């Protein structure tokens, strides 16, 4: 390519996004944040091993929830719901999503990306894709490990029977990571203290409004994720009791549609914010 041609050359939004993705993924995978991510996703595995050890040591009624011994599948469902959906996915969304652009600004490397002939929005989109791949690569294997540790507690046959639920869980978690990541990317692109706002949203607003009936809960990501939960929870357990509060759940189609709209809308607004915002680097 001649220099003159090169000066007229410009990547499409999609191509620029993929090149930013290529550049960002290794940076993200080997970042300090990924060590944190590995610790977070390792937690449920450690817990599953602990459960397995307790059951192995005292098999008869070693674990009881509200007086009933939950099956391996139910325990696994609780881990997925309480640890992954309610905690790990929002945490990862907050810490990665709000930092997509902020990290480059803090490291002062954003200048190199913003002075290349690509739309600024593609920088956000490429980094978002890198976030998604990075978190999916680390979270989903952890869920699979949990599945194979905990589900056999009800007999080895449980593994085959519950396998479709595992696949649905993996899909649901990927959708959750996509939705939370997009929402917090928007928070990061628009607000000055995105981490604080993100944490308040994920662990204040969402669990808070989910406890009340009415339409406000529709302003959460958790409400729609809940519509994708495939597990039958143990009857009369504490979890079951809590879930009674959430009896109004959307259908899977409604949930998927809403989550797709949330993801696409949040990303669009985030990219727009990045296009228009000035980034003043500290001297």
């Amino acid at each position, binding site marked *: 390519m001649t220099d003159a041609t090169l000066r007229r050359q410009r990547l499409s939004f999609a191509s620029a996004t993929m090149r930013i993705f290529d550049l960002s993924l290794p940076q993200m995978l080997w970042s300090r944040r990924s060590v944190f991510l590995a610790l977070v996703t390792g937690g449920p595995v450690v817990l599953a091993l602990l459960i397995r050890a307790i059951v192995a040591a005292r098999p008869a009624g070693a674990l009881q929830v509200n007086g009933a011994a939950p099956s391996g599948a139910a325990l696994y469902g609780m881990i997925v719901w309480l640890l992954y959906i309610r905690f790990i996915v929002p945490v990862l969304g907050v810490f990665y999503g709000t930092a997509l652009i902020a990290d480059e600004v803090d*490291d002062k490397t954003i*200048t*190199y990306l913003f002075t290349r002939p690509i739309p600024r929005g593609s920088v956000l989109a490429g980094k978002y894709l890198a976030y998604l791949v990075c978190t999916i690569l680390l979270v989903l294997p952890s869920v699979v490990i949990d599945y194979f540790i905990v589900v056999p507690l009800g007999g080895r046959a449980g593994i085959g029977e519950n396998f479709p639920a595992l696949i649905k869980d993996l899909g649901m978690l990927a959708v959750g990571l996509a939705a939370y990541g997009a929402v917090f990317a928007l928070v990061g692109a628009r607000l000055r203290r995105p981490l604080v706002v993100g944490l308040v949203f994920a662990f204040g607003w969402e669990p808070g409004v989910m406890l009340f009936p009415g339409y406000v809960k529709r302003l959460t990501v958790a409400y729609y994720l809940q519509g994708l939960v495939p597990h039958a929870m143990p009857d009369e357990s504490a979890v079951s009791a809590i879930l009674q509060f959430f009896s109004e759940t959307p259908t899977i189609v409604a949930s998927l549609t809403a989550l797709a709209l949330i993801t696409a809308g949040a990303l669009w607004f985030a990219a727009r914010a990045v296009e228009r915002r*000035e980034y003043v680097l500290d001297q």
Partner: protein
Amino acid sequence: MTEGTPVIQANHVSKWYGQVSGLNDVTLTIPPGVTGLLGPNGAGKSTFMKLITGQLRPSQGDVRVLGEPIWHNPALYARIGFCPEQDAFYERMTGADWVAALMRLNGVGDAEAEQRARRALEVVELSDAANKKIGAYSKGMRQRVKMAQALVHEPELLILDEPLTGMDPIARRKAIRLIRDWGRAGKSVVVSSHILHEIESMTSNILLINQGRIVAEGNVHQIRDLIDEHPHTVHVKAEQPRALAREFLSADDVLSLTFEEGAVVVQTAKPDAFYARLTHMAATGNCGAVFEVTSPDDNLQAVFEYLVK
């Protein structure tokens, strides 16, 4: 862009950071070639650099680069190379990988990006360290790899923000030569520095900036014309300094005279008239031989000090 078209035009540009003014009503035109932006730290150089690279939007006025508005115009970056001031990198990447990755954002394929990256690293004499991680680079090497990413796509306009910071004398000399060669090759360079002799060694076309204002622009002599109200000092080594002094005193433009060993130091309000008279006196030989004429005012330092006081 046609030849002679200004590479940068700023029209009544101001930039405020909240209540703080970064740049104040700047109107200027930067011609093709090498132009130095000179000013003390905090003068507004970096704000100006960020405005002309489209990182900041002017609070007032407009900035055009290569004839087009720069803000929100990413296509223009294909024609501009920017070397920022900050010492910031993807530390775990090698120099070659980093420059190639940024080159890929200009729309070329992997093979061409790698080839161009190698060539750019060669230009800044960093080929030997191309496969080392940037985190292991010395300060001077980091400056050079930053320059490599700025010139890898052969831009028409190179904008360098304090590019010589941290370089050792040899690297500094090479970088200066590179910048001058770039200008000689018909490309344009805007280079900022707070060190006078750095700019002076690259170009005589300068912009002086202080407290958010352009206090002077042009070449050193044009700037000197702007400050004619300031006394201009000329040091004349001569055979008969006192005889020369008597002649000088008869002219209205001479403000003061002092004597040094074998020389007379004159302060004049009209340097051009003074030099013409001195040339005539030297030619006639009426006041003895004139050995050497120097003017500290020809040094950028003197101009700068006058203007920023």
